[in-house]
């Protein structure tokens, strides 16, 4: 039997959105509050549907470290660019957004124009298929993403091993969301009164993963979906908590998110990966905030298979504020390069490149 709803239009209706904005005005606190979302899709949705400008002025909607391309450290961008230059016979497969991220001296896009074999894929399974079709070629999947993406890559590695495909490996730059939220709160750099938590990361890890944020930091969290009504209703739930002095974890996106998350996806992820320290643009090194490939799967670990090199460097190029934008400290429009030297056509930093980046969202939807 076909479903009675399609999960898109029902959550984009204007009438209910207007009514929800009135309810938000009813419960908005008198003093200023800062609400942070930590998912590039929320960033995009809030910009696209004009939510930031529609809510009362006392509610500051900040974008945090929710774009996987943007939080990748510059040294990690540089080493894949360097690797592609030194190994033109190796296929580097990656998600499209990674191509145009400017490294210190070059980008994957520029190296591709110079002859490096760099291919864009929609799924890690596409990269595995390339390896299957051309056994003489080494295929390295250059892999970024949070807890939503990591299980898909882990499942691909398991499939590669099961099917005996040996010319496939992964450079894992995967990162975990809750440790970054903790690092941000611990830094004291930015005042955050509550979090809109990412819908699809939480589909995997479960809403219970944020318990420590409410308990230890007194900050309420609402896991919200990505359609405009979801974002507005999630914000309303968060404002109710602040009004009532509560700090709890609540789920708005109940059609997909549970307290425990997707156990199968978690098992697959931790069968292949283990937690490791990881460096984030803007946030620096965060303990146990990344995923590296376990020893049992070392044949599929590009860092074990190849000399990937690593040269430490500053994250931001001269004048670029991406590191501060990622922390919610600087709005894109406050960066001197924004929409002048830095545009989607001539990006100076990853936040302007990625479709999930805060600067790209502001440029596209919120430029005055």
């Amino acid at each position, binding site marked *: *039997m*076909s*479903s*009675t*709803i*399609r*999960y*898109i239009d*029902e*959550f984009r209706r204007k*009438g*209910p959105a207007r*009514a*929800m904005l*009135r*309810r938000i005005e009813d419960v908005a606190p008198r003093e200023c509050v800062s609400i942070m979302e930590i*998912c*590039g*899709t929320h960033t995009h949705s809030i910009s696209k549907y004009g939510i930031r400008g529609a809510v009362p002025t006392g509610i500051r909607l900040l974008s945090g470290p*929710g774009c*996987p*391309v943007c939080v990748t450290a510059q040294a990690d961008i540089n080493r894949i660019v360097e690797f592609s230059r030194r190994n033109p016979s190796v296929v580097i497969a990656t*998600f499209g*957004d990674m191509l145009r991220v400017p490294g210190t001296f070059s980008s994957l896009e520029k190296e591709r124009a110079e002859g490096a074999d760099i291919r864009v894929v*929609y*799924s*890690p*399974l*596409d990269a595995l298929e390339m390896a299957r079709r051309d056994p003489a070629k080494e295929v390295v999947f250059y892999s*970024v*993403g*949070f807890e*939503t*993406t990591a*299980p*898909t890559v882990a*499942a691909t590695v*398991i499939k590669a091993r099961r099917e005996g495909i040996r010319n496939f490996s992964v450079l894992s730059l995967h990162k975990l969301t809750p440790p970054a939220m903790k690092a941000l709160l611990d830094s004291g750099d930015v005042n955050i009164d509550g979090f809109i938590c*990412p*819908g*699809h*990361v939480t*589909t*995997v890890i479960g809403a219970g993963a944020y318990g420590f944020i409410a308990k230890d930091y007194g900050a309420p969290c609402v896991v919200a979906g990505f359609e405009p*009504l*979801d974002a507005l*209703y999630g914000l*309303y739930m968060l404002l109710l908590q602040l009004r009532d002095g509560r700090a709890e974890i609540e789920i*708005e*996106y*109940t*059609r*997909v998110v549970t307290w425990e998350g*997707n*156990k*199968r*996806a978690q098992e697959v992820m931790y069968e292949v990966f283990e937690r490791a320290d990881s460096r984030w643009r803007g946030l620096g090194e965060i303990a146990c905030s990344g995923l590296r490939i376990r020893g049992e799967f070392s044949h599929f670990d590009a860092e074990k298979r190849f000399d990937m090199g690593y040269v430490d460097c500053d994250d931001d190029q001269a004048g670029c504020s991406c590191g501060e934008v990622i922390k919610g400290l600087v709005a894109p429009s406050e960066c001197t390069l924004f929409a002048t030297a830095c545009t989607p056509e001539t990006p100076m930093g990853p936040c302007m490149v*990625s*479709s*999930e980046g805060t600067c790209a969202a502001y440029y596209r939807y919120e430029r005055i």
Partner: protein
Amino acid sequence: MCLGVPGEVVEMDGDTVLVDVGGTRRRASLMLLDAEGVELTPGDYVIVHAGFAIQKVDEQAALETLRLMKDIS
């Protein structure tokens, strides 16, 4: 990249499923869904991310959310 989208199940095919995402049909792996806990039939919706179905969408929960939204507006 983290973009997950709802897709309607069109056809089951072993460990993959054919889904319709906004009029485009694509195949999604079922490796990340708990085979015993999740039963899928054509017409169901799943969240598709990077070639994998990562969760079945709960229709009753969606209707309940829409009801709650209506109640406050």
